[in-house]
């Protein structure tokens, strides 16, 4: 079953989502929503999965580039070679880049103006806490 899913979605190879024992891993509800949106839009022919994946791969590469050479806090008592922060590439980071790639791809197709998303986001952020989900 899992193999079949992976085949259909091209969930393997570069840019593939985080998986545990061959299963998709979502760390929070919004990650599932983001994945679900991409999957539905792809099925509807809004974009091809490969098109999306290429964008995802390049955004992941940019993220890794930005996070790979940041020196960690140096411990003066340790005189080994310099310590570097390794990029912590987890589900949260993956789906943040995933969501960013998705919104960029859709904006590039003129499905909405980027400002529209910014406005909508600001409206949602302005909601009081404790609203119902």
């Amino acid at each position, binding site marked *: 079953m899992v193999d079949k899913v992976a085949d259909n979605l091209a969930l393997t190879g570069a840019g593939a989502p985080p998986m545990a024992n061959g299963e998709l891993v*979502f760390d929070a509800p919004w990650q*599932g*929503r983001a994945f679900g949106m991409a*999957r539905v839009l792809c099925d509807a022919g809004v974009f091809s999965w490969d098109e999306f994946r290429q964008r995802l791969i390049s955004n992941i590469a940019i993220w890794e580039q930005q996070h790979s050479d940041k020196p960690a806090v140096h411990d003066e008592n340790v005189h080994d070679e310099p310590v570097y922060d390794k990029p912590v590439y987890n589900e949260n980071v993956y789906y*943040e880049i995933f969501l960013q790639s998705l919104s960029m791809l859709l904006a590039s197709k003129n499905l909405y103006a980027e400002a529209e998303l910014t406005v909508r986001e600001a409206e949602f952020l302005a909601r009081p806490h404790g609203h119902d*989900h």
Partner: protein
Amino acid sequence: MSDDLDKHQLNKPPLDKHHRHDSPQATRAEALESLLIDKGILVASAVDAVISRYAERVGPMNGARIVARAWSDLDFKQWLLADGSAAIAQFELDGGQVEKLVVVENTSAVHNVVVCTLCSCYPWAVLGLPPAWYKDPAYRSRIVREPRVLLAEMGLVLADDVQINVWDSSAEIRYMVLPQQPHETLGEPESELAEHVSRDAMIGVAR
């Protein structure tokens, strides 16, 4: 109904312990989805359908494997009930979840059911994505007020002498039900037992 109130106890966290779900990413995802729906590019139910497919078939398998282990290994079961978070560590669920997991055991005398009365706190790492009804205000209120009636409506009729415990999830504590092992599966290997465990049974709305 008054019957129910006598026979179940509500294990409720303080109000301020409930989860604030709105991370910036969650808000962005919600804003994008809402915009796409307004533009007629996306239908929310289609997204629900994709998610439910993963929720039904992918996510709950983690919980099912844990239940299967508990059914076939008494030591593990006792550990699981005593310290759920520690006991499931060996399954390498990799969900990044930091909440405490409490596993509650069904017996012939006690039935457990899980809810999040204020929002939709859910044991992601073991059960995957929550079903839509779990977030439904009707489920969240009625499972507390009249659990026996609601469970019956959901297809689970419990005898009157079975005590119902309702567990209210919070940001810090998530609950999972350890269902009773069906008699006909006694002696089956652990690898096959997981197939008898449903997501709904681990929430407590099915046996």
